[in-house]
């Protein structure tokens, strides 16, 4: 499961650190104590930044790094599609052999295919993705609130 790509992201994480954002969430994986604080910043429907800080195992840390690399700059719709594919891969119990299309979508994240064989670790890999989803919901909810407030 420890593909070089994963170890690389673990040792040299992308976009780590907390920067300005529209929403912040804190997620914990209670079974192993992995923790992440994650902020999203939107520029309209474009993801301007995903910044994060956390502690945890290599899988959860590398996954956050991959997420940052993959999603920043993308349109929300596209990001959601990517997340769905990643989720599908992680829940495949090692039964999906990523094809070219999947590799194109997930880029470095295909390296997590091996992790999906380890149920105890799938949660680690998904921690940052769940945090991102949650933060996005908050940010967009707030945007809408803000929008309402502004137009009011």
């Amino acid at each position, binding site marked *: 499961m420890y593909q070089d790509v994963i170890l690389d992201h673990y040792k040299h994480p992308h976009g780590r650190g907390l920067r300005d954002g529209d929403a912040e969430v804190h997620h914990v994986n209670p*079974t*192993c104590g992995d923790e992440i604080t994650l902020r999203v910043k939107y520029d309209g429907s474009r993801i301007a930044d995903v910044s994060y800080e956390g502690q945890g195992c290599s899988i959860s840390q590398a996954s956050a790094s991959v997420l940052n690399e993959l999603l920043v700059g993308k349109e929300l719709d596209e990001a959601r599609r990517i997340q769905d594919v990643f989720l599908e891969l992680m829940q495949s119990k090692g039964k999906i052999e990523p094809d070219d299309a999947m590799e194109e979508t997930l880029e470095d994240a295909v390296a997590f295919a091996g992790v999906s064989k*380890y*149920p*105890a*670790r799938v949660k680690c890999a998904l921690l940052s993705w769940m945090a991102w989803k949650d933060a996005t919901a908050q940010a967009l909810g707030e945007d809408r609130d803000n929008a309402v407030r502004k137009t009011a």
Partner: protein
Amino acid sequence: MTVAHQGLTGLLDTEAIRKDFPILDREIHDGKKLVYLDNAATSQSPRQVLDVLTEYYEKHNANVHRGVHVLAEEATALYEGARDKVAEFINAPSRDEVIFTKNASESLNLVANMLGWADEPYRVDHETEIVITEMEHHSNIVPWQLLSQRTGAKLKWFGLTDDGRLDLSNLNEVITEKTKIVSFVLVSNILGTHNPVEAIVRRAQEVGALVCIDASQAAPHMPLDVQALQADFVAFTGHKMCGPTGIGVLWGRQELLEDLPPFLGGGEMIETVSMNSSTYAPAPHKFEAGTPPIAGAIGLGAAVDYLNSIGMEKIARHEHALTEYAVQRLLEVPDLKIIGPVTAEDRGAAISFTLGDIHPHDVGQVLDEQGIAVRVGHHCARPVCLRYGIPATTRASFYLYSTPAEVDALVDGLEHVRNFFG
């Protein structure tokens, strides 16, 4: 020896099935072949289940959840796989509604305790009522008596008709607006009666009461569909359905399991613990404190596979044919009186009876000397004995491996008992 059973239809190929059950080859009392008619007390386990148990301990044994090593992953997959199997077996809408307990008794106590500690609208307290029936197993009486004593709730029950059925003539007086929970047995272990669910559930829903069904004698013997039952909780026990001892099941509706408080506290059932307070894992784990009966659950999964491989419909048909035959043959025995429905309609394959004034203990003992294993006593349903004014009964109960020849052996055995004490 009588051979009156030729031409019975709907029977299983018991010759093949019996080969799966090592214990059925056992001889007792110097070479007498075992005739095992005590299936309502506990069933036997096929080789297929025993092999799974042994393989678990020889290859995969580890504590479940949270492990990152191979054995822990395997044990967890097997344990949770058993949950999937049980969920499918009872047609549960979600696997997370299947809670593993140690037996049906724990399952029923779990329901009673959840309701005692629950918040509104589920809370059972001194202003509310609990409804059971007079034909319950002690495991579906005592937990409610305890709850009633501890909360002040009033315990009420349905009585029995002379022919061994529930007396529902006062349905609307027994189940009222005050009723919080109605708990009753689907198939009685002493009378054999198969109870009408719909009428009771409809009335319970009318008044907003929860319904708990004790399916201990149903799950082993017929297709069980918790959605069709429309109950809120269904309890049953592994050792009566070809599974190992020490494993039971409580199925509960997801929303309820989410809302209701935990019962036992400990490892596995928590989300996070500090010295001051804890939060709980989602169901089913919330209700599974401590290391679960891992091998027991996996063995139950194997038992479910085995039963499915035969087919629950077919098992039900087999037992129905056998019960019909047994009722007819038993009624030929002078002085024998069946306690419970004297028909095979709406009844399970447990038949209780008295034999003149020969005490059931003596009946059972003399049958045992002939290799025939039946149960005698009040079968953990003493109120039924009180209701019919008898100290005890003799009970013969059948399963998928039981044969008409065993019914004949029983009838011949009873003749011998009569002569012996005559």
